[in-house]
Every structure is written in structure tokens, then in C-alpha cells.
């Protein structure tokens, strides 16, 4: 199982690539993420979390040390690993051998000096990082512009970081020929907040609130996943009523997240009425969330060992009744949307990808399911109360915007169905722990996965018998998905860009870490190089 304490298999660095290839052969084909941990004795440990499509996870661990630690790249084996590797390179200084990617910053701002120590090492304090960043000049305009004329006809269109078509900051430099995008250079990371570092310096209890703030939409999922990992370190099992209530809030969150996304897709497809309809329905869900937890956005509901407040049975039944109404509204919208020729033609075949592509980039969540894999953590590795309810997993055969809309509409109805089952089966008992957990967590490593609205959310927690965690690793669903989206942009029409980027339901603040320059083919350029190529243009 992927949840619980981590049992690692030690692998020597030389044999890493073969071991992973053979693990992938034997069915562990999905690279969840690569966690790097500073062991504090001069050695770094890299844990490769490989998942099979039916829920089993293997953890391969390599140790590297010395002045310049290095691991071989897996990019040839699995292109989706590239982002994870470069993340570790930036934050831990692990050299990646043979991925063809140049130096340059990936997650950290460009101004973070090359000579400075990597920020997530234990020897570096948060204050030190802050000082480094404050003293550096980060707003050089070469970071925001790319000059890479591929042919005399092509034009570079800078897109973002602040653009009306983007809800969150990111920068895409588009090389276009006419209306067609030839290359897309993505650069994300404008909202990097260093939450993983901050989590190391707070107590477990305060971390729950901090990690909730990784994302404003799937905040309960972040808190829950972290709490799951901590609970398995402590050997605590939450009361079953608490598991049901967590599931209830998580499903409500999924409804509001999918509804939000559906509205945005309608907006970018030129169907603003859809936006108004769906967001109107979503308001009912937000009111339920506020009534149940006390807050609309950051619910602060999950805590270690249970939930923070009980919700009476009759209230839960009332929510299920209200949601049945919402469900009727969604069914109507579903009919209207799928019978609307303009909308169907606008979205069908836009941003098309195959199952092979989705697997190659380790895509997760609805993006993966649209391509044909029934990869839903709720089903393959049930957590909370998902093993006590019966629900289908929506799957379509080919990824495009229309199928993603269909899948998410189906999932909205599924979530409502799940909630009505939860209301029926809600067990009695006290879900609120007698007192908050404020102690130390015994030494160990644990990981947890949940199916956040955007896909598989992964947490790795290492504790060392202290009040605060030794290391918290977060892998949000947008990181693998945005790799796919970046490759889909090439060859697409310029006017489809907002639609394609929105279709994967990106959450840049969650991902927040990524600073990507890629061109989809074999080589990757840094912004410094590109700026140099541009030369005396300025």
C-alpha cells in the first residue's frame, strides 16, 4: 500500500536506472515523485516513489554524498521525471547526470546566487535564505522575456506572468507562426513561498494550518493528507465518524473545485452563461462548507486524531438534501452543455492527447482518467470512508477539453452520490479528539496519498522524535499535469491557449515551485541562454 510507514529498498546509485526500469517493467510504472532528504551527516537520500496502477507503491532509496552529489537522470525512461529531478537539484543541490537540462534555476528565483547553499539543506536557516533573496535584484526584465526566433516568420509572444487570461501568475513565451504555436516556454514559480522549509520549523499541529494554505481550493485535502501521514507515524487511527466527516468535507470541496473549474472553462470557451450557472450552484456548496466547518475557504477542519468539530447527523442529512437539488441543477447544465453545438465544437479535439502521453508525463487525476486509465486514489487505495461507499470512476478514451468537461461533470454527480451515501451510513461516536496533539512524533517516515480534486496528492513526512517534522515533501497534482499541458500547447492555435492551460485545472500556487523552460522536444534552454541568444537586442 502507498499509505503508511515507508519501507525503503536500498539501491546503489550505479544501479538506480536499471532498478527503476525493472520496477516499471513489473507494473510500477507511475513515478509519484522523488523525495530528497538531507540526512544531516553530509549525505542526501533520494527516495523514488513508484506506484502501480492498482495502488501498490514501492520506495527505492539511493544515498549520495560528497562535495557534489549526483544521480543519473530518468528523463529517457520517463519524461515526467524531469520536473521532480530539477526540483531536487535546486533545493538540495543534487546534480542530475545525463538529462540534457542545463544549469539555471528551476524553482528558486533566478537571482538566488549559484554559489549560495541550496535552501532545503539542514545547515541553511530560513533567515539565511530570506537574507539572500532580499539582497538580490530579482526583477531583471530578461527573466520575463524570451527572444528565440526560430525562423524569420516566427514571432515571440510573451504571455503573462500577469495576464487577463490567467488566474494565477505564470509566464509562457510563445513562439508563434501566424496563429499557430510552435514552441511554448513555460516559466512558473512566481508564487514560490518556501512552505516545505517553513513546515520544518513549526510543530505538527501548526503545520496542519500552514499546509492547508498551500492551496485555496483543495485546502482540506492538503491538511488531510498530511494528517494521514502523521497519524500513521503515531499509530493513531481516527474514529470512524471522523473519517466519514473528513470524507464529507473532501467531497464537498471536490464539488466546489470542479464547479469552479467548469465555470472557468465555460468562460475561456466563450460560454459565459455557463460560468454564471455553475458558480451560482457552487454558492450553495460554499454555504454548506461554511455552515459545516465555519469557514468557506480554509476550513481548518481536520486535525491529528480526528476533526475539530462534530457535525450533527440531521445537518449532514440536510446537506445531502440540498446537494440533491444542486445535482439536479448540474444534470440540467450537463444536458445544456453537451447539447450545445457551439460549445462541443469549441472544445472537441482541442488539446488532444493519448493515454501513452498521459502516462509518459505521469499525469494524474481527471487528466489521466480522460485518457483511459481509471487511476483514482479513492478507488485503488481507499482512505477515509471511501471503502464504505460505492461509486463509479468516470473514464473516457481520449483526452481533450470536451472529455475533461464530461469527466468532471460526471464526478460532480458522483460526489453528490457519495455524500448521500455518507449521510445514510454516518456512524455515531465522538469524532473530536479530547485534546489537541501537541507532543513529539516518534522517529520514522510515512507517506500518504489522497485524490484531491485535481488528482493524486502526495505527502511524505519524516520525523525524528521532535515537536516539528524533519522533512515534509509535497507533490501537488499540477506538477505532472502542467508538463503534459506544456507539450500540448505546441501545434495548438493561439486562441486555444487559455482553454488548454485551464483544461488541466492548473493551480500554480499549489505547484508554486516550478520554474520550467522546456520546448517539448529533446533540449531545454535556460532563460540566461535565451537572453544571451537575444544578445544586443536591447
Amino acid at each position, binding site marked *: 500500500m502507498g499509505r503508511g510507514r515507508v519501507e525503503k529498498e536500498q539501491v546503489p546509485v550505479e544501479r538506480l536506472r536499471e532498478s527503476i526500469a525493472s520496477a516499471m517493467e513489473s507494473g510500477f510504472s507511475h513515478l509519484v515523485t522523488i523525495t530528497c532528504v538531507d540526512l544531516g551527516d553530509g549525505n542526501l537520500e533520494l527516495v523514488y516513489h513508484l506506484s502501480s496502477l492498482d495502488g501498490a507503491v514501492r520506495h527505492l532509496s539511493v544515498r549520495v554524498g560528497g562535495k557534489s552529489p549526483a544521480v543519473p537522470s530518468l528523463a529517457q525512461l520517463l519524461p515526467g521525471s524531469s520536473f521532480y529531478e530539477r526540483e531536487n537539484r535546486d533545493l538540495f543541490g543534487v546534480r542530475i547526470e545525463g538529462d540534457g537540462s542545463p544549469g539555471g534555476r528551476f524553482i528558486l528565483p533566478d537571482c538566488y546566487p549559484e554559489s549560495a547553499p541550496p535552501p532545503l539543506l539542514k545547515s541553511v536557516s530560513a533567515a539565511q535564505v530570506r537574507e539572500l533573496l532580499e539582497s538580490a535584484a530579482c526583477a531583471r526584465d530578461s527573466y520575463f522575456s524570451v527572444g528565440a526566433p526560430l525562423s524569420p516568420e516566427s514571432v515571440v509572444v510573451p504571455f503573462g506572468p500577469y495576464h487577463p487570461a490567467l488566474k494565477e501568475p505564470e509566464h509562457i513565451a510563445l513562439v508563434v507562426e501566424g496563429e499557430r504555436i510552435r514552441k511554448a516556454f513555460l516559466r512558473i514559480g512566481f508564487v514560490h513561498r518556501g512552505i516545505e522549509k517553513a513546515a520544518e520549523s513549526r510543530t505538527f499541529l501548526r503545520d496542519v494550518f500552514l499546509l492547508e494554505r498551500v492551496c485555496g481550493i483543495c485546502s482540506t485535502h492538503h491538511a488531510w493528507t498530511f494528517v494521514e501521514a502523521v497519524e500513521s507515524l503515531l499509530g493513531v487511527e481516527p474514529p470512524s465518524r471522523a473519517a466519514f466527516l473528513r470524507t464529507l468535507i473532501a467531497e464537498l470541496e471536490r464539488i466546489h473545485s470542479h464547479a469552479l473549474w467548469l465555470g472557468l472553462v465555460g468562460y475561456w470557451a466563450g460560454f459565459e452563461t455557463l460560468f454564471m450557472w455553475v458558480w451560482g450552484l457552487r454558492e450553495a456548496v460554499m454555504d454548506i462548507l461554511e455552515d459545516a466547518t465555519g469557514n468557506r475557504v480554509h476550513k481548518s477542519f481536520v486535525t491529528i486524531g480526528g476533526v475539530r468539530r462534530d457535525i450533527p447527523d440531521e445537518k449532514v442529512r440536510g446537506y445531502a438534501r440540498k446537494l440533491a437539488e444542486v445535482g439536479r441543477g448540474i444534470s440540467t447544465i450537463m444536458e445544456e452543455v453537451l447539447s450545445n453545438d457551439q460549445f462541443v465544437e469549441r472544445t472537441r479535439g482541442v488539446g488532444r492527447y493519448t493515454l501513452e502521453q498521459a502516462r509518459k508525463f505521469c499525469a494524474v487525476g481527471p487528466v489521466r482518467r480522460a485518457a483511459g486509465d481509471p487511476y483514482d486514489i479513492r478507488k485503488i487505495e481507499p482512505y477515509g470512508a471511501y471503502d464504505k461507499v460505492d461509486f463509479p470512476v468516470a473514464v473516457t478514451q481520449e483526452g481533450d477539453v470536451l472529455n475533461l468537461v464530461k469527466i468532471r461533470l460526471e464526478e460532480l454527480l458522483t460526489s453528490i452520490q457519495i455524500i448521500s451515501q455518507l449521510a445514510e451510513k454516518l456512524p455515531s461516536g465522538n469524532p473530536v479528539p479530547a485534546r*489537541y496533539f501537541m507532543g513529539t512524533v516518534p522517529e520514522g517516515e510515512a507517506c500518504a496519498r489522497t485524490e484531491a480534486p485535481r488528482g493524486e496528492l502526495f505527502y511524505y513526512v519524516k520525523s525524528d522524535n521532535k515537536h516539528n517534522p524533519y522533512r515534509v515533501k509535497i507533490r501537488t497534482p499540477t506538477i505532472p499535469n502542467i508538463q503534459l499541458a506544456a507539450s500540448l500547447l505546441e501545434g495548438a492555435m493561439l486562441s486555444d491557449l487559455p482553454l488548454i492551460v485551464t483544461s488541466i485545472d492548473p493551480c500554480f500556487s499549489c505547484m508554486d515551485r516550478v520554474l520550467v523552460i522546456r520546448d517539448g522536444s529533446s533540449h531545454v534552454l535556460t532563460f540566461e541562454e535565451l537572453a544571451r541568444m537575444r544578445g544586443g537586442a536591447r
Partner: protein
Amino acid sequence: MSEYVRAVLLGVREALAGRLTEPIQAVTSNERGRGVPVLDSEKCLGCGLCARSCPPAAIKMRVSGKRVVGGREVPKQEPFFDYHSCIYCGMCADVCPAKAIRMVKASPLDAVQGALPQLLVIPLPPQVTTFLLILIAVALVYWVSGRLAPRGSHSQTAREPFSGGVPLTAARLRYYAADLMTFALFLLLAEALCLLLLLAGGESFPFGVLLVAALVIFLQGLILLRR
């Protein structure tokens, strides 16, 4: 034709249907929210558990008085909520052993408004304080000198404290532009002098010194202009 009729009817119906959006008061003052933390200082033990468990560290313990423990007087501490950092999670109310913190049903907007007087307690940077004080002091001098200036009944020229000015009837031109410029000039002079004093003497210049400095400059200016 019937389409037009239907459209008109639809329009009329929509116009009479009332609005779909909710007024902001209804949203912010609903009963569903968790509320804002409010302290009952009589119950407070001063243990500091709330401050230690506050996720954003928005609670600071401050000495608020004395308390008798075992016949000895010890300083009593009380939590101080920074409502701008507060995330309204209710953790402090949950952990409080004396139940001294209550979550009062209110919107954080109310709490932040209530927090404004508390903001004055938060120390401003000394430079800001100094310049605000100089502004107040110089404005005071200007006002006082205006009151003290001779007001002859025979003419309106004496209304202006420094130069006499020209008789003007329009209310908005009652202050002579040249005088205002003088005022600005002396304000800048006073600020420059006080800045020099500050640089020379450190941060702890009392208000009185600044006031006297500003007064001296102003009186000199007055004499200068009056000859």
C-alpha cells in the same frame, strides 16, 4: 410578433424578480462563520497556551497588570490578538483551559475595524513618529500664531499672520498663497532641523524639544517677515 411579446414579458418578469446577488451584510454577518476571538480578561490565567498554539503566531502575550500569586505580586500577562494576522481558526478558544477566549459570532471585517484602535499601540518606526510629531507641532504653531496675530478693524490686511496679505473676500482664497508657501518652507526647515537633531542625538528626542525647535524657527520667520 409573439417572440417580441415573450421577450418583453421575460424582461418584465426578470425586472420584478428581485436580485440574485446577496447584500454584503448578509454574507459577512451570517451565523455560519466561526467568529472572531475575544478575550475575557477576568477569566484569563495568563498561561500563554493560546499564543503557543496559534498557527500564524498572531497572539502575543503582553503584561497587562499585576496579579497576586502566593502572596507575591507578579506581572499578569494577557494575549493580544493581531486581527490582521489572525486566520480565525478558533484554535485559541479551543485550547484555552479557563475558557477565557470566546469565538464571538461576527465577521472578521468587524474584528479588523475593532482592531484599528489597537493598531495605535503597535509602535510605528521612530522616523514616522518624529515627522508626524513635527507636522502636528508646526501646524499648531501656525494655528496659534494666526490666533495671536493683530486684527485691526480698519482693514482685512491684518488677517494673515505673517505678511498681512491682501484683502480677499472669497472664502477659499482667505489664506494668502505666499503665506502657504512660507508655511511649507518653514515646515521643511523645521523638519530638516529636527532630522539633524535626531541624527545627532539619537532616537529618543522628546516631543517638547521638537515643539520648541519648531516654535523658534517659526517665531524667527515671523520676525523676519514682519521686519
